[in-house]
C-alpha cells in the first residue's frame, strides 16, 4: 500500500513531472530535427497541413495508448515499465497474443481512438495547429531553439539516473515518482550489470576462501580448482529413482492454505503437503520463470542482470542435467509453450536436456491452449507418455516440466473446477492444482510410479511488488518432494532456497558426485539455513531473520522483519555486521567471478 503524506504527494508529482520532462526530451528529438530543416514553402503547403493533422492524431492515439499500457502493466506488476516490459517488447508474438486473449482489445482500442479524437477536436477548435503551420521563420532563427532542444537530452543522459525517484522507503511511492517511458529506456540501458563495477567487492582470495567454507567445499575440494569444485561423498548404495519435477508457473505460497495462505484454492496440493516432504520456509531466488530455472538446474545465486538462461555463452554450464545424463538418465525439458521464448530451448538443450515443447504436441495431445502453451492437463499427459517411453526403453528418467496455465489470460478447459475459466488468477491456480492432482492420480497407475520421486515447486511468486525494493514474502513458494513408497512424509521448516533442490534430491538418491553447486542438502543435520533472493539489481541474503541487500552504487542495507506473514512483511532498518557483509558479498561476488572466469562450466570428464 501507498504511504501518502502531503510532502510525499508533493514529491511524487514534482519529481514525477521532472522524469516526464526527461522522457519527452528524448521523444521530441526527431520532431525538432524535422521542424528545423523543413523549408517554409513545404511547411505552409496545403498537403503538409493534412499530413500534420494525420500525424497529430496518430501521436495523440499513441499517447493515450501509452497511458492505458502503463495502467495495465501497473495492475499486473505494481511497478512502472521495467526489465519485464523490455522482454515483452522482444517476444511480441506471445505478448500480443496474451494481450488479445486477456483484454477486450476491440473496445479498448476504440476508446483510445475516441479519446484521441476528442483531444484532436479541441486542438482544431483552438486553431492551434494552423497557427503553427503559418510560421515563416528562417533557418537561422530556428537554429537557436533547436540547439536548446538538442542539448536537453544530452544533459539528461549524462546527469539523470533513476536514483532521484528514491523519495521514500515505500516502493510504490518511488515508482509513482518515476515516468514509465523513462523507466523503460532505463531498463534497456541497465539490462546487464557488471558486479565489480556496481556492487561492493572484497579481496578475491578472501571471497573464494569464504565461499568454500559456506558451501562446505573446503575439505573435499578437487585439487588445483580455483573455485568451489568439490566432492560430495555418500556411503551406501546409490539409487536410480526416476525424477519428475513439476515447476509451476507463479505458484506463490499465499495460494496455499497449508502455508497459512488463502483457503480453498489448492485442495490437492494441501492434501499432498501431508503426504510429502513439505518445505514451508522455502524461497524462490527471483521474480521470473528463467530465474527459477537457473536456480533449480544450476544451483547458483541470482547474479545481477538477467538470468543465465537468457545470457549469451550459457552452454555447458555445470548443470544438474549433465549429472543425470551421465548416469544414464533420459533428461527432458517438457514445456507446453514454444521453448524459444526466453531462450529456454537454447539453454536446456545445451545443458543436458532434450527438448519436448509445443511443436512436439500432436493435435490430439493439444486439446486446449492459450498463447503461452497447452493447458496443464495436456502438458502433464505428455509428461506421462514421455515417461512411459523411457520406461519401455529401460532407462531411468528425469523430467523438468514447466506449466503455463497459471498465467494471464487464465484460461483453461471448462468443467474441471467450480470456478469459470478467464475469471482471474485464483481460478487458474485452482485449475493448476486440479491438473497436478489428476497427474499424480494417473501416475499412480503407471508401473514406474513406485520408483519415482515427484518434485513440485514454483518458479516464482505471482506478484513481486511490495513496500520495499525486495519484499521477502513475495519470494515464498512451496516445495513438495513426494514418493509415497520411498520417502516418509514430513514437514520441513528450514529456511531454504530453490538452489537447494538438486543437492537435496541427489542426497535422497544417495549419490556421490563432483559438485559446483552453491545449494546444500536441506535434510542434512548441518544445513545452514538461508535464502538467496534477487531482482535484476538487488541481490539479497535472508538469514537469521534479517534481509541484507546489495544494490548498485556499491550499497548495502539490512532490514529486519518486525511483522511478517505469507501476505505481507513490515520491516525496520537494521545495521549490517561485518560477518553478514562478508557472507552476502562472498555469495554474489564469487558467483559473478566464477561465471566470468568460466569456472561454473561442466567438463565432460566429471
Amino acid at each position, binding site marked *: 500500500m501507498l504511504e*501518502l503524506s502531503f510532502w510525499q504527494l508533493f514529491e511524487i508529482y514534482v519529481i514525477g513531472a521532472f522524469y516526464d520532462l526527461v522522457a519527452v526530451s528524448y521523444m521530441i528529438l526527431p520532431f525538432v530535427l524535422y*521542424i528545423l530543416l523543413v523549408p517554409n514553402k513545404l511547411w505552409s503547403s496545403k498537403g503538409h497541413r493534412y499530413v500534420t493533422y494525420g500525424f497529430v492524431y496518430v501521436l495523440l492515439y499513441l499517447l493515450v495508448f501509452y497511458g492505458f499500457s502503463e495502467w495495465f502493466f501497473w495492475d499486473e506488476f505494481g511497478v512502472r515499465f521495467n526489465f519485464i516490459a523490455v522482454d515483452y517488447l522482444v517476444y511480441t508474438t506471445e505478448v500480443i497474443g496474451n494481450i488479445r486473449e486477456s483484454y477486450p482489445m476491440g473496445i479498448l482500442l476504440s476508446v483510445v481512438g475516441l479519446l484521441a479524437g476528442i483531444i484532436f477536436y479541441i486542438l482544431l477548435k483552438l486553431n492551434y495547429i494552423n497557427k503553427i503551420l503559418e510560421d515563416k521563420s528562417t533557418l537561422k532563427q530556428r537554429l537557436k531553439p533547436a540547439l536548446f532542444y538538442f542539448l536537453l537530452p544530452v544533459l539528461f543522459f549524462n546527469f539523470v539516473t533513476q536514483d532521484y525517484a528514491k523519495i521514500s522507503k515505500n516502493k510504490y511511492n518511488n515508482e509513482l515518482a518515476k515516468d514509465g517511458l523513462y523507466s523503460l529506456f532505463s531498463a534497456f540501458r541497465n539490462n546487464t550489470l557488471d558486479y565489480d563495477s556496481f556492487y561492493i567487492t572484497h579481496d578475491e582470495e578472501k571471497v573464494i576462501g569464504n565461499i568454500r567454507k559456506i558451501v562446505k567445499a573446503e575439505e573435499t575440494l578437487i585439487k588445483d580448482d580455483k573455485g568451489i569444485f568439490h566432492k560430495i561423498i555418500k556411503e551406501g548404495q546409490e539409487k536410480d529413482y526416476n525424477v519428475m519435477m513439476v515447476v509451476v508457473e507463479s505458484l506463490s505460497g499465499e495460494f496455499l492454505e497449508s502455508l497459512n495462505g488463502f483457503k480453498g484454492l489448492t485442495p490437492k496440493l494441501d492434501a499432498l503437503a501431508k503426504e510429502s516432504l513439505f518445505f514451508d520456509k522455502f524461497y524462490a531466488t527471483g521474480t521470473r520463470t528463467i530465474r527459477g530455472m537457473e536456480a533449480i538446474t544450476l544451483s547458483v545465486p541470482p547474479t545481477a542482470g538477467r538470468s543465465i538462461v537468457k545470457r549469451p555463452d550459457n552452454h555447458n554450464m555445470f548443470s544438474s542435467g549433465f549429472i543425470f545424463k551421465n548416469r544414464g538418465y533420459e533428461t527432458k525439458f517438457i514445456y507446453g509453450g514454444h521453448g524459444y521464448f526466453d531462450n529456454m530451448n537454447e539453454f536446456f538443450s545445451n545443458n543436458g536436456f532434450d527438448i519436448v515443447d509445443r511443436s512436439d504436441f500432436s493435435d490430439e495431445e493439444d486439446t486446449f491452449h492459450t498463447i503461452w502453451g497447452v493447458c496443464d492437463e495436456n502438458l502433464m499427459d505428455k509428461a506421462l507418455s514421455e515417461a512411459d517411453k523411457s520406461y519401455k526403453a529401460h532407462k531411468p528418467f528425469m523430467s523438468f516440466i514447466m506449466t503455463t496455465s497459471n498465467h494471464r489470460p487464465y484460461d483453461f478447459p471448462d468443467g474441471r473446477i467450480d470456478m469459470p475459466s478467464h475469471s482471474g488468477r485464483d481460478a487458474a491456480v485452482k485449475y493448476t492444482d486440479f491438473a497436478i492432482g489428476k497427474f499424480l492420480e494417473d501416475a499412480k497407475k503407471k508401473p514406474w510410479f513406485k520408483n519415482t520421486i515427484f518434485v513440485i515447486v514454483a518458479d516464482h511468486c505471482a506478484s513481486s511488488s511490495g513496500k520495499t525494493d525486495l519484499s521477502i514474502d513475495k519470494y515464498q513458494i512451496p516445495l513438495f518432494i513426494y514418493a509415497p513408497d520411498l520417502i516418509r512424509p514430513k514437514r520441513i521448516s528450514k529456511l531454504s532456497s530453490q538452489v537447494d533442490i538438486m543437492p537435496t534430491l541427489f542426497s535422497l538418491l544417495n549419490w556421490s558426485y563432483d559438485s559446483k553447486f552453491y545449494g546444500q542438502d536441506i535434510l542434512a543435520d548441518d544445513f545452514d539455513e538461508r535464502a538467496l533472493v534477487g531482482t535484476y539489481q538487488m541481490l539479497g541474503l535472508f538469514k537469521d531473520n534479517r534481509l541484507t541487500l546489495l544494490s548498485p552504487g556499491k550499497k548495502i542495507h539490512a532490514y529486519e522483519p518486525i511483522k511478517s506473514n505469507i501476505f505481507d512483511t513490515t520491516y525496520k532498518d537494521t545495521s549490517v555486521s561485518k560477518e553478514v557483509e562478508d557472507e552476502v558479498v562472498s555469495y554474489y561476488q564469487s558467483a559473478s567471478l566464477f561465471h566470468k572466469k568460466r569456472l561454473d562450466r561442466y567438463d565432460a570428464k566429471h
Partner: protein
Amino acid sequence: MNKTSYQIHLRVIIISYYFRILIQGFIMHTYLQNRFGFITLVVSLFLIVSAITRTILLVQSL
C-alpha cells in the same frame, strides 16, 4: 469536516493545482505561433497524459 475528509480534501487540492498549472501552461503555449509551438504541444500533452496516469496509479495503490 472531520480529520480524514479534511486530509483527503487537501490532497485533492494539491493534485488539482498541479493539473491547473499544466493546463494553464498548455493554454499559454497556444499563443506561441512559431514552429516550435509544435514541440510545446507535444511536451504539454505528454506531461498531462503522464500526470493523469500517475494519478490513476496513485488512486489504485491507495
